[in-house]
């Protein structure tokens, strides 16, 4: 009987691999397969962002199911437990060439993840669909609302170091507070490459939850009368495409000059903006339909495939989950504080909810602000006003990320 079971297990290497793992690792693996199912379901039901959660959930389930005993990449070291998906641990050129022939996602991982290209591609796509009108017609208001919404990005840094993370790791984690997925990916690749998978996955899952979570924060803090404040559409002046193009060229160049280390991100975003404002229809179609959609698909799927049991069993994972929550909670709080200040200073002409749109998760936070305002007052239409602080939030998050990347390496501690 035992022999039959052994033969049967040998016939199905995925099942056999359970017997080769520690009981804890096997349990975590089963739990991750279930987490993958849950993410797909929640994405399908539109509770979480389906564009990311469906590919990520499929990646998590299937990579944790498809584990087998396979020859080690390093010659003469016998066999090791692995998958046919991706191996993020290869380092030498020879191993890389071998890995390209074994792991089907290895080319995507090496050529787009390891150098941060995927984050830049997503950013380029976002740039090509971003509407700059409110931001350019009210740059002061947009920027001043985005700055307090970076509270989480700033305060999470000392909290993370107090929890035992190194300054580089803490800075990468703090960027979660900026609520900008590609930025988190880019920062973690630059500052804490060994933690980029858990940090990015925690960030993307939280960014999906924001749509459901921030309304509770808004309703708990802002009274209904303030939430339902209408805004005057005449605040949005007409901005010519030439003005928006000039803004993208000058600002992008200036930011690259100040922070060469984050220049790929700035260049990608402002290239997307410039393509849109130059009305290059063919490029706009490629940026939106091909680059943004394709990179989002592979971003979600590859991140899911990188979430194996040993990543989750890292004791740092629980701390990351706590810190991710703190970062986004503080940023939401800061954004609402900025919004309330703007409401008071303007004599009630500005809806305070556009402050939370400064948490740059474009366009989710702007949609959340609009949804909450609309629930309080069906005549309140604040979406175009909320997009301005949201775009300013992308720029301030990029600036803070660049400051962290530049300064952390020069820290005296």
């Amino acid at each position, binding site marked *: 009987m035992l022999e039959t079971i052994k033969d049967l297990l040998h016939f199905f290497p995925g099942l056999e691999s359970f017997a080769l793992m520690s009981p804890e690792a096997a349990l975590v693996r089963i739990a991750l397969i279930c987490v993958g199912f849950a993410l797909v379901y929640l994405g399908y039901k539109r509770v979480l962002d389906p564009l990311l959660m469906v590919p990520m959930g499929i990646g998590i389930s299937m990579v944790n199911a498809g584990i087998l005993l396979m020859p080690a990449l390093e010659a003469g070291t016998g066999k090791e437990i692995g998958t046919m998906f991706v191996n993020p641990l290869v380092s030498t050129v020879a191993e890389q060439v071998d890995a390209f022939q074994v792991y089907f996602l290895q080319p995507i991982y090496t050529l787009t993840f390891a150098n941060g290209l995927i984050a830049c591609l997503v950013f380029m796509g976002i740039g090509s669909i971003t509407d700059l009108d409110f*931001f*350019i017609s009210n*740059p*002061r208001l*947009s*920027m*001043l609302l*985005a*700055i307090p919404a*970076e509270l989480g990005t*700033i*305060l999470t*840094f*000392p909290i993370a*170091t*107090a929890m035992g993370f190194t*300054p580089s790791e*803490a800075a990468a984690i*703090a960027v979660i507070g900026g609520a900008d997925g590609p930025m988190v990916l880019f920062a973690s690749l630059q500052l804490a490459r060994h933690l980029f998978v858990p940090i990015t996955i925690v960030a993307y899952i939280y960014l999906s939850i924001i749509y459901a979570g921030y309304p509770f924060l808004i309703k708990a803090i802002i009274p209904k009368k303030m939430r339902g404040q209408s805004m005057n559409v005449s605040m949005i002046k007409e*901005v*010519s495409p*030439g*003005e928006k193009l*000039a*803004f993208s060229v*000058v*600002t992008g160049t*200036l*930011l690259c000059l*100040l922070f060469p280390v984050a220049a790929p991100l700035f260049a990608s975003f402002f290239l997307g903006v410039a393509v849109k404002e130059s009305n290059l229809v063919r490029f706009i179609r490629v940026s939106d339909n091909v680059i943004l959609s394709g990179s989002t698909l592979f971003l979600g799927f590859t991140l899911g495939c990188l979430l194996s049991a040993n990543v989750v069993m890292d004791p740092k994972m629980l701390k990351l989950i706590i810190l991710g929550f703190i970062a986004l909670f503080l940023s939401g709080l800061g954004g609402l504080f900025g919004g309330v200040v703007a409401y008071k200073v303007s004599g009630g002409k500005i809806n305070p909810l556009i402050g939370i749109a400064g948490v740059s998760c474009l366009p989710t936070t702007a949609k959340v602000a609009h949804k909450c305002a609309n629930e309080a007052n069906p005549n309140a239409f604040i979406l175009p006003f909320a997009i301005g602080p949201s775009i*300013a939030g992308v*720029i*301030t998050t990029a*600036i*803070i990320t660049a*400051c*962290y990347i530049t*300064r952390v390496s020069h*820290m005296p*501690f």
Partner: protein
Amino acid sequence: MSGIFVHMVFSLKIYILATIISITIMEIVVLIGRFIRLSKG
């Protein structure tokens, strides 16, 4: 405790630096707008 204080000061410095740069960019946007409107007459 002093470690946390040092890190807090560091992150506040980053915040101030980022605020200054953001405000500079904001003023550049305003200037570009003015320049383009002036050049159109």
